[in-house]
């Protein structure tokens, strides 16, 4: 079972991100389960959502406490919330930021985690460019696909298209695709560096 935890703030599409990830996994024929951290959701408040992906039926109903991957939609949470709780040393970390891990004050992660499991991505900028609104979830999922390989970009684009119809759907797919290629390029660069 592969477990993802998405951290962000109310209004950034955290819950929708987990939902689209679960739909993408479903489209790939896997079992998946997505659910929000249960609370009074309001704009700007820290929000967590979870997604489990498995080849078998998922019966577990606890929150994801030992994630295999962490997606951070809002970098202002980095030093406020215990984001990295339970994350394994081989876990993936994707942060929505144009800065590097060192610039974000997270250089310690570079020593504890394999370099090919870490990436930052300017997802809000990508979203503004393609969607015109600061909604980074689709871009982050595209980046997550490239970083982890846990979900295919094709299934992801289909899931995004299921959720958002028409132009909004196209724009979100463009954002995801752009992010996918950007992270893929970054990983290639990191591997040869």
């Amino acid at each position, binding site marked *: 079972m592969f477990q993802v*935890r998405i951290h962000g703030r109310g209004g950034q599409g955290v819950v929708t991100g987990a939902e689209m990830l679960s*739909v993408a996994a479903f489209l790939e024929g896997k079992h*998946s*389960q997505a*659910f929000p951290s249960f609370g009074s959701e309001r704009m700007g408040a820290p929000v967590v959502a979870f997604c489990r992906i498995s080849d078998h039926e998922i019966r577990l109903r*606890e*929150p994801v*406490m030992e994630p295999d991957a962490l997606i951070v939609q809002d970098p202002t949470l980095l030093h406020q*919330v215990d984001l990295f709780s339970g994350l394994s040393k081989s876990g993936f970390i994707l942060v929505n930021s144009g800065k590097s891990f060192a610039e974000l004050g997270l250089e310690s992660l570079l020593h504890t985690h394999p370099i090919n499991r870490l990436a930052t991505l300017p997802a809000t900028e990508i979203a503004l460019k393609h969607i015109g609104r600061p909604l980074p979830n689709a871009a982050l999922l595209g980046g997550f696909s490239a970083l982890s390989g846990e979900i295919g970009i094709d299934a992801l684009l289909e899931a995004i298209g299921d959720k958002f119809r028409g132009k909004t759907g196209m724009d979100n797919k463009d954002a995801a695709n752009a992010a996918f290629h950007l992270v893929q390029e970054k990983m290639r660069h990191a591997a040869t560096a």
Partner: protein
Amino acid sequence: MLQQLEGSRAIAQGIALCKPEVVCAYPITPQTHIVEALAEMVRTGELANCEFINVESEFAALSVAIGASAAGARSYTATASQGLLYMCEAVYNAAGLGLPIVMTIGNRAIGAPINIWNDHSDSMAMRDAGWIQLYAETNQEALDLHIQAFKLAEALSCPVMVCVDGFILTHAYERIEIPDKRDVDAFLPPYDPVQVLDCNDPVSIGAMVGPEAFAEVKYLQHRKQLRALELIPEIASAFSARFKRDSGGLVKPYRLEDAETIVVALGSMNGTIKDVIDEMRNEGHAMGSLAIVSFRPFPLDEVRAALVDAKRIVILEKSLSVGLGGPLSDGVRKSLSGTGIKGHTVIAGLGGRAITRKSLMDLFVKAEKDELELLNFLDLDLDIVNGQLEREKETRRSGPVAENVLKSIGTVASRIA
């Protein structure tokens, strides 16, 4: 068709397949997406011949359902938490009048303190109202139970609550098989009422009954529930034959073979319990579990038959009978009377506290060592409790408990579980 859906939306699709003629709801918290989705389906015409009535309160929601059902319409509503309490009087009336309304409870806690999260306090508060209560383990089962609920309700002319864990199920996306319309039509024929307000054949419904026959009318309600003990397995097996999957029934045993310790629970926590049992079985522990689907009527004989060879029973409950223990334990203990089997009540998951594998594993190991009390509280933070008891001892005017406790623990926004 297999789909990845939010629990509430899937349940709404299941309800629509049952072709309700009246859906009424009070649309604000504590409500789920179920009625929102049904309202959309009525508006678009996807759910035809159905009137969606937006009412002014939960009391009105069930009162309208009572009127609609008495007029011969297949009627549905949904609520939870304080909303269910607000309709309490109508809950008893629907059962007392014998009207086959189906209502979803998206289970949530009851305040005070204010809390919007999941536990079973709401439906448990209505356990003796005369409704049948079925508890779903997964969203697939939740959808399936609604289809069975209409059949059961109408066969008996008795209302049915389908209890679905709020958030944990209602807000979770998972794969769900949406049944074929033709199968549902064949399984659930149109509603044929045993009593109906009909201008051409007038009757009155809702007589005043004095001491001369009140007990008899109530006893007949009880007889209906006893009849439900026979009907529920029949309907579940007819469902399984047509839809090719098992859902519902009275109880669901899991790995009971040679089990010395058996865990009994209601609803979605059975999934996590099964994962823990598999893990412990792999390490040689003789563990099993029994999910209770039908809490009202309570299947005393089936529970006894499932548990009778165990050494000890752990009853996990998401509801606290303040001053006594847990309502599920009352039924389980009654079913075990005379056997001498030890029963341990464990109150867990109140107000949305996560029930984790780790906590369950520790709990079950303690149970095996016979270290549990009659009544236990899972993951109770004694520092918080004792801090408040200290404050109360020190000062007469120690202030409001909830506020004191929150002050003492500081912000919790950063916690995962």
